[in-house]
């Protein structure tokens, strides 16, 4: 296999890798700004310089020249090379800043240049703390500056579009954002204007940067030049805890981080998963977090009055046993986890009721061929795979009106809005509801309300539109003690137990709710139905072991990137 020597260590390589990516892959850090693995390589930041040599060959014979000791003679390029654009060849010798003073010096020189016109307003910059320029300037840059002139002034806080704000002075002109719109999203909405040191990205005259994926440029911008109109100045990066999970605004299951401070989700950023969303998120995914913070129920209720959990579970069990099992309509939820839906199925089955059905949320034409789907709920695939069928609202409504159905048991879902229940039916039919938000219109007439933990407060599995099963993890705490959740939160948060600035253990903003895998067994138990699981992990083990359509979907297998399940047709 061909070999390359980097800082006196030999590595084998395959294919035709570029040097910078190869170094990053093997764990050799090289400072860089403009390079992004998903876009063309303009080599414009000039930060990734290295010294490179190749074995000298005899002009005539083409044979490798060797010195007296039999080692190949290395001919160095007269100029330092940008590693991002350089293809590795067999026998190449590379010196990075770790072994060459010249390279270290060149990297330092470049950072000096990058900083002379940079405003250095890190104390008020959203990017500070996770800013490639800041980090690399500290690591590889010079101490102080020799620049003694006025910095160049450029336009600041320009609204490029509804969701992205530009600070032209912070821009280091890496062209990642413009390349993104021309090569990745294809909207071509950004271009660099002006020239020389007055360069900055801008929209063509009379247009806005409003594509549905505009906010990705905020993450790929290596400085704080592009900020989120939504998030600007809300929190510093070190004040938030970060949890890997997935987004739920559609059925793509894009991988993300939830950034939480004091039990409020502050922002959502993409997490790389080459099988699902690569490096990107749709704007709708990023802005879909207020429902985790706002309009949350205050706790369980019985007939419109606050109640304790125990009483509420008891009342739910009482109502369930007060009607004939055939008269119960169980409604599962494409917003809830596979685990919760499975337990609901199990509850219905144990009672002898018909299998739960689910409400489909499709907005035809809203989707695209990228990360936005027509499907607006995250887990209809999970419901289908559990054998649930889509509810026919008209038939269900008729059966309720004729009194054929006497009790409706609903996981997070709004049958009133879906047209299954009408407000007037609610007197005749009993309703047990596990809602996320008080905006749920079914809530007012519900007999028992058992507030449910949202995706950012629970542990569980979702199956995206392509059959990719993925785990969610608690990003924020709920009221009450739940060992599973606390353990999960501590283990899965990228920063372990969260930053000291995130007061997740304080009472503030804790919602009094429960994951379905807590509340459903509580109800079942009161009906003498066996539903004793150690937690969602065990539930999913059972699902993976017993339901063909979930084969292999254990927590271990799903890990951080999920597993691709068999096609439904093939499995069932």
């Amino acid at each position, binding site marked *: 296999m061909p070999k390359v020597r980097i800082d006196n260590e030999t590595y084998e390589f395959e294919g035709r890798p570029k040097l910078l990516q190869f170094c990053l892959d093997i764990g050799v850090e090289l400072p860089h700004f403009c390079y992004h693995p998903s876009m063309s*390589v*303009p*080599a*414009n*930041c*000039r*930060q990734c*310089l290295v010294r490179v040599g190749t074995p000298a060959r005899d002009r005539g014979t083409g044979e490798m020249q060797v010195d007296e000791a039999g080692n190949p003679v290395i001919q160095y390029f*007269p*100029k*330092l090379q*940008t590693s991002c*654009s350089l293809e590795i060849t067999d026998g190449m010798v590379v010196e990075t800043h770790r072994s060459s003073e010249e390279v270290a010096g*060149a990297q330092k*020189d*470049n950072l*000096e*240049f*990058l900083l*002379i*016109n940079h405003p250095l307003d890190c104390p008020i910059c959203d990017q500070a703390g996770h800013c490639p320029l800041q980090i690399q300037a500290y690591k590889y840059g010079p101490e102080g500056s*020799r*620049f003694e*002139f006025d910095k*160049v002034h450029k336009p600041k806080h320009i609204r490029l579009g509804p969701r992205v704000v530009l600070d032209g002075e912070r821009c*280091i*002109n890496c*062209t990642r954002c413009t390349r993104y719109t021309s090569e990745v999203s294809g909207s071509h909405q950004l*271009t*660099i204007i*002006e*020239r*020389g*040191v*007055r*360069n900055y990205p801008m929209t063509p005259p009379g247009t806005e940067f409003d594509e549905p994926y505009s906010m990705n440029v905020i993450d790929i911008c290596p400085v704080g030049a592009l900020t989120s109109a939504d998030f600007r100045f809300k929190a510093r990066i070190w004040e938030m805890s970060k949890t890997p999970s997935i987004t739920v605004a559609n059925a793509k299951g894009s991988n993300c981080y939830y950034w939480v401070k004091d039990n409020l989700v502050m922002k959502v950023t993409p997490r790389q998963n080459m099988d699902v969303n690569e490096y990107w998120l749709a704007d709708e995914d990023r802005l879909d977090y207020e429902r985790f913070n706002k309009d949350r129920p205050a706790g369980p209720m019985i007939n419109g009055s606050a109640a304790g959990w125990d009483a509420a579970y008891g009342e739910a069990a009482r109502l369930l046993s007060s009607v004939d099992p055939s008269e119960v309509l169980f409604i599962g939820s494409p917003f809830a986890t596979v685990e919760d839906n499975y337990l609901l199925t199990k509850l219905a089955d144990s009672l002898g009721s018909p299998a739960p059905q689910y409400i489909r949320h499709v907005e035809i034409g809203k989707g695209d061929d990228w990360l936005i789907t027509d499907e607006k709920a995250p887990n209809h695939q999970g419901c289908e795979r559990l054998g649930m069928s889509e509810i026919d609202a008209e038939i269900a409504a008729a059966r309720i009106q004729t009194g054929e159905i006497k009790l409706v048991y609903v996981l997070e879902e709004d049958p009133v809005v879906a047209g299954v229940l009408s407000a007037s039916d609610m007197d005749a039919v009993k309703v047990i509801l596990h809602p996320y938000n008080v905006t749920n219109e079914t809530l007012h007439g519900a007999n028992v309300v058992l507030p449910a933990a949202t995706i950012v407060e629970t542990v569980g599995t979702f199956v995206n539109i392509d059959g990719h099963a993925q785990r969610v993890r608690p990003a924020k705490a709920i009221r009450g003690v739940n060992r599973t959740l606390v353990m999960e939160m501590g283990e899965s948060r990228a920063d372990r137990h969260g930053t000291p600035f995130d007061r997740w253990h304080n009472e503030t903003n804790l919602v009094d709710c429960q994951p379905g895998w807590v509340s459903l067994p509580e109800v079942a138990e009161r009906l003498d139905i066996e539903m004793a699981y150690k937690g969602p992990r065990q539930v999913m083990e059972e699902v993976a072991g017993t339901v063909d359509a979930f084969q292999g979907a254990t927590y271990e297998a799903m890990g951080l990137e999920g597993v691709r399940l068999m096609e439904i047709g093939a499995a069932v």
Partner: protein
Amino acid sequence: MEAKTAKTKAGEWRKYERVLLPPIKDLHRIDVYEANGGYKALKDAIKGEKWTPTAVTDEVKASGLRGRGGASFGCGLKWSFMPKPDGGPRYLCCNGDESEPGTFKDRQLMEYNPHLVFEGIMIACYAMSISTCYLYVRGEYADWIDQMETELAKAYAKGYVGKNILGSDFSCELIIHKGAGAYICGEETSLMESLEGKRAYPRIKPPFPAQYGVFGRPTTINNVETLACVPLILERGASWYAGLGAAKHPGPVLYGISGHVNRPGVYEYPTGMLITDLIEEVARGVRGGKKVKAVVPGGSSTPPLRADMIDGVTMDVESLREAGSMMGTAGMLVMDEDTDMVSWLRRVTHFYHHESCGQCTPCREGTGWLEDIVSRIERGEGRVRDLDLLADLCSQMEGRTVCALADAAAWPVRYTIDRFRDEFVARCRPSHVAVPALPESELEEAET
């Protein structure tokens, strides 16, 4: 005078007969051009048995023609980098962006002898099996662009350009493209981006234009004057061309002489002219009988030579390299003894600062910083240590950028300071200010 006794490679240059810009009235008109033997080389090339495309390239190689756009690269060699035709499009770009300060010779060709340029283009396209050429002209040359459009239409009508040229099966389109006022568009890869309708940011190389050029297809870029030499080479033979001027850098050259001379202008002579001959005889000496202080031989980016460095130096790659400069575009700027070199350098740094495309860090940031410092020195506010800083910054820019504009910006700074250091030091305040001694009385007080 000393200049007359010194050895010149230009031979009997005083008897030289102009070939690029011959003294023929209305030569820009196609009928006049034809009446004076115009388009004969093209006819021979396309119709004659002798000139296969390879034979044309070989002839150009044998002539020793080097590019006139600045880098003096062997023209025939460059042509031979084009891959074998694969049926897809291939392009020639004729570079008439001419924006380097001190350079104004392509304009003469486009104004007075455009058909020679068109003919050269057609022969080059024939040699490289190219069927489209873009002639990229700086937009400020609006009048000559209009005139060339008119003349080009006539060339099309007469079958020298376009479909089935002169009844052969060789077809080639020629499109004149107007630039929009950016020096960087003259850089070959930037020119291609600009042609594609994109922002004119130079590309990284490799891939080189011959592999991946305009619209991703094989492309050759040549300067206007370079291509104008081609019909002459075919007509008079490679050996005629090779025998003219300096052996390693032969041929006729348009010297664009400007600055403090009595007769600035564009002069056609062989390469290898003594700089002193060009100043004293061709340009009729320095204005007001003053002495020369500095000569910038080939456009503002080439290092200036002090008066005491130009004796015996001839205008060709070899001699200028030895002297410590470059041939560049042969746009020679002469500065007399009263010239303020600090001020001159400030103006040059301003140009490169203004023209940096801004794509890459060292050039975008460095060019402005250079101007800041030199301006401060010019105002009398600089310090001697600024001169070291300038040298440092040049080292931080040279060879570390996408295109050569950063080098072009750094060289004049490095070499002007190097060669005229006293003048700069005299303008600077000292870096170290001596602490004045305390008066006696205070000293005594301090001791008690």
